[in-house]
């Protein structure tokens, strides 16, 4: 953890993204998605052959949907891709590999990955098409499925406010997967609207403590 410079450029922050990397990208649809960082990936030569862990793959031509159309994504891991017809088309054309997880299993796999847990058992999905090939175990009389934790090389997240240490506060339902992903990658880059001095945030309101955050890119005004 280094002290945040409110002037870190998107290009400098994204240097950590190398070909073949696994990325976590926050957001629920476009809400809470780090759109400026995603734009930055489009002009970053290292951003290719990517595995993207994200609830969705954006919308047609927007957010992660642009990265897909630009041919940068090899594999998508998430819970709901049908809202972007481009994902369906890429999958059917054999250009995109998809791993589909129930949304709660996706969230917990990310949480576990950030918390040093190797995997977990859940009742969700047992006895469905998504159970194929998964280890089963009966716990408390109920069948469960095993899922391994998820971890990424780089997480791109969005928050409302960072302080100069990298402590983060989110905005409403734009929080979603972002705090979980902040814990589960080797390098965590946060896109924020504003950066405030250390001490300006109430310790009780900080959602992501700074030790999880490696770089902050400010898309608004620094105060």
């Amino acid at each position, binding site marked *: 953890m280094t002290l945040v410079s409110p002037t870190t450029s998107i290009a400098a922050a994204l240097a950590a993204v190398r070909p073949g990397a696994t990325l976590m990208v926050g957001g*629920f649809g476009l809400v809470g998605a780090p759109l400026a960082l995603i734009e930055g990936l489009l002009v970053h030569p290292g951003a290719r052959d990517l595995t993207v862990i994200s609830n969705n793959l954006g919308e047609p031509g927007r957010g992660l949907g642009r990265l897909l159309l630009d041919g940068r994504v090899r594999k998508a891991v998430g819970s709901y891709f049908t809202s972007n017809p481009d994902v369906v088309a890429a999958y059917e054309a054999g250009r995109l590999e998809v791993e589909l997880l129930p949304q*709660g299993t996706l969230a917990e796999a*990310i949480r576990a990955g950030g918390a040093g847990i190797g995997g977990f058992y*859940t009742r*969700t*999905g047992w006895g469905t098409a998504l159970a194929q090939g998964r280890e089963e175990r009966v716990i408390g009389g109920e069948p469960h499925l095993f899922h391994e934790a998820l971890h990424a090389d780089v997480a791109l997240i969005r928050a409302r406010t960072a302080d100069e240490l990298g402590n983060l506060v989110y905005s*409403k339902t734009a*929080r979603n997967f972002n705090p979980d992903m902040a814990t589960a990658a080797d390098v965590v880059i946060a896109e924020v609207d504003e950066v405030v001095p250390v001490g300006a945030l109430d310790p009780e309101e900080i959602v992501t403590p700074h030790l999880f955050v490696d770089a902050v890119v400010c898309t608004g005004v620094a105060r």
Partner: protein
Amino acid sequence: MTVQQMTVQQRIAARVAPHIPRGAVVNLGIGIPTLVADHLPAGTAHLQTENGLLGVGPTPGPGEIDPDLVHAGKLPVTARPGASYFASSASFGMIRGGHVEVAVLGALQIDARGRIANWALPGKPVLGVGGAMDLLVGARTVIVATTHTAKDGTPKIVADATFPLTAQRPVDLVVTEAATFAVTPGGLELVDIADDHDLAWIRTHTAAPFR
């Protein structure tokens, strides 16, 4: 608005509302379930949406829309006094952990045991599941809100589902514009017939046995 003037979707939602206990924490799925909120007396339920809000309020007026404030269907909402925001892992902890009392979900099919299919179509690539499977295993009570038949008029309530099941767990209640079925260990039990329908219609349009 009289019952006759309501769309079939609104009539179904109105028939679900009396089954929501006062003060309950409720998750409403996309589609007809979302409309249930319009039929709950203000403040009588705490609506949870899995993208991270407990205390969903009414749809904002024009000019009051906040792009950071949406429900799981990605449409704008408001937050009621007493609302809270949380991360996705905490939200699904609430759901799987049995802290959400009622989930109202849509369905493509309901089988004779009360199990539902609501996430995938046979023969199509399976690329979306969202929170449906988590809600089905985790909510303490699951109510299905659905039209009695599919758009082509075929029954949705069938002996054996031909669409992929969302969970092995049966739901508790199936509410359509025509009928309400309770799911019991012995199968489907007809507990209510809507005023504008009769038993003969229900028999013709239901392809699973019921009592």
